């Protein structure tokens, strides 16, 4: 599974460890994770609570740096980047969907979706058109002016997905995207994510607890105690390229 540098893998974690805190209070969250993800894959990350899933996600999302080991994104060493360089990488290549939606409150769905485009300096008329298109893609065209408080959980998660997609990122990272939703909404969201993965070739990495949601992915990575315990194709619907 371990890809050579420059082999074309989009994401490569090599012997990545992460230690939180220092001395007696130190927690070894990751103990040497190797993971390689190719462009266009849809990967589910599973594992018990506290196993290190979110830590992996934060590192993949360039929100956090590994304690040791190497993280290469498109062959670039993320560990060597500054805080600002990582911010720019997030801005231009990554989209996030969080478990708790994390939308700006008292802010319309449209303005929420526009936010990443503002940081990309997209001009206002184009920004608006693209945000509306992203909302339309998740079926919320008519809800553009509603604030999160006026939307259901499923709708809020779809706004969050629209926000992650509006910049057409190379990778979307989703941390338990269905965790706060009932089963029916959960399936709706997964179907939406899978269709986006297929139609647009967006690489998708998501954390989930539920096997039925993981089944949407083409590959499941099991994490246990800070290590990749099992990494297997599901034979499921997603078809990674090549």
């Amino acid at each position, binding site marked *: 599974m371990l890809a050579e540098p420059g082999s074309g893998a989009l994401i490569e974690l090599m012997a990545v460890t992460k230690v939180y805190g220092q001395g007696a209070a130190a927690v070894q969250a990751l103990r040497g994770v190797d993971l390689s993800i190719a462009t266009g894959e849809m990967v589910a990350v599973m594992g018990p609570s506290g196993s290190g899933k979110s830590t992996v996600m934060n590192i993949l999302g360039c929100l956090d740096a590994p304690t040791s080991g190497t993280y290469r994104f498109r062959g670039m060493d993320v560990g060597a980047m500054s805080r600002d360089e990582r*911010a720019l990488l997030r*801005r*231009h290549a990554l989209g996030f969907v969080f478990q708790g939606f*994390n939308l700006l409150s*008292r*802010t319309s769905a449209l303005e929420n979706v526009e*936010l990443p485009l*503002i*940081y990309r300096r997209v001009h206002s008329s184009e920004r608006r058109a693209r945000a509306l298109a992203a909302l339309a893609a998740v079926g919320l065209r008519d809800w553009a002016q509603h604030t999160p408080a006026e939307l259901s959980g499923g709708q809020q998660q779809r706004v969050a997905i629209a926000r992650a997609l509006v910049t057409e990122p190379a990778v979307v990272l989703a941390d338990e995207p269905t965790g706060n939703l009932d089963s029916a909404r959960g399936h709706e969201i997964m179907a939406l994510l899978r269709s986006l993965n297929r139609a647009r070739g967006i690489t998708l990495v998501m954390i989930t607890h539920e096997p039925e949601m993981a089944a949407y992915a083409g590959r499941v990575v099991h994490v246990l105690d800070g290590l990749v315990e099992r990494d297997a194709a599901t034979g499921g619907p997603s078809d990674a390229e090549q």
Partner: protein
Amino acid sequence: MLSNSLLLAVREIRRNALRSFLTILGIVIGVAAVIVMVTLGEGATLQVRRQIEGLGSNLLIVVPGQRMGPGMRQDAPAFALEDIEALRRSVPALAAVAPAVTQSATAIVGNRNWSTSVTGSDNSYLQARAWTLAAGRAFTEGELRAGKAVCLLGDTVRRELFGRQDPLGQRVRLTKLSCEVIGLLQPKGQSGMGRDQDDLVLLPLRTVQRRLSGNQDVAVIYLSVHAERSMQRAKADVEHLLRERRHISASEEDNFSVRDMREIASMLTGTTQVLTALLGAVASVSLLVGGIGIMNIMLVSVTERTREIGIRLAIGAREREVLSQFLVEAVVLSSFGGLLGILLALAASLLLARVLQVPFVLNLGIIGLAFLFSAAVGILFGFFPARRAARLDPIEALRRE
């Protein structure tokens, strides 16, 4: 980058309209207070200056005795008519030399009476004290020489004694003296010290000396100097002449004093200017307090919006973009507060100037300064909260509820 920050900041301000308004209230009040204080203060200064000019231009006042410490008096002889003539003869810089004797008296017409002050002088008094006639005529040479019972009325006396009737040709009784009204003086209004300048009756000097004061003394001499630049020179000449006439030896001090109205004017306007500066300074403290208010609210807002900041950072906002958003937010807020304060100040100063009867002086300098200051307050007090927001760890920030 700036237009982006502006967009984000304006969205945030609009989203929290009430909080934003309360935040800037301190600035609004601070800016308004500074401008109102300075505007009214300058109005008062201008008023004092105008009124002192109204006393007579290039005026010197000569009184017997020296101004001494409080409560101390010095016996000094009064002036005589000969002193007046000598001054007129030998100091060419003087445009007018007016002797004056002033007494208080009750003026009676029919069943109306009014307690006023009666001044005996001649027509040069009108020139020296800048009086003009509203109606009638000044004294004739004959009336002055003979000490005739004729008088000119100040506007207040005219109003109190005659109301809407025409006083010209009527008779007014002043204690034992009945005199005919031959002229009316143009009103001047209140003096800088709050005294009613129009409360006077003017008679020939000789009439007052003979019929009211009962002696030949001249209590005060009013001098008007031709040109302002020769004031100093004229004053010296007058002092020299009077020392000679009053037989004061070189070792003795003057037993009279010549006062320059310009000195008194600059002293008075100086006082109001100091007062203005003081009030302005006190008011700027409220601006500072307003700035601390902004900092407080911005700090609360950073804590409140930690998750929002986390979202922005995760989406790809750089440290300096979060910093500039919060900074721009603070500056937009505080300068908007400044603008509101300026509007409030203009309205309040117009109103107060009317109520207090001081002229309204629009000082664009202080308005511009107050605006710049309010913007600076935003930068100063917005920086610390903004930096705190920008340095948040995105993961920590996202985890916060």
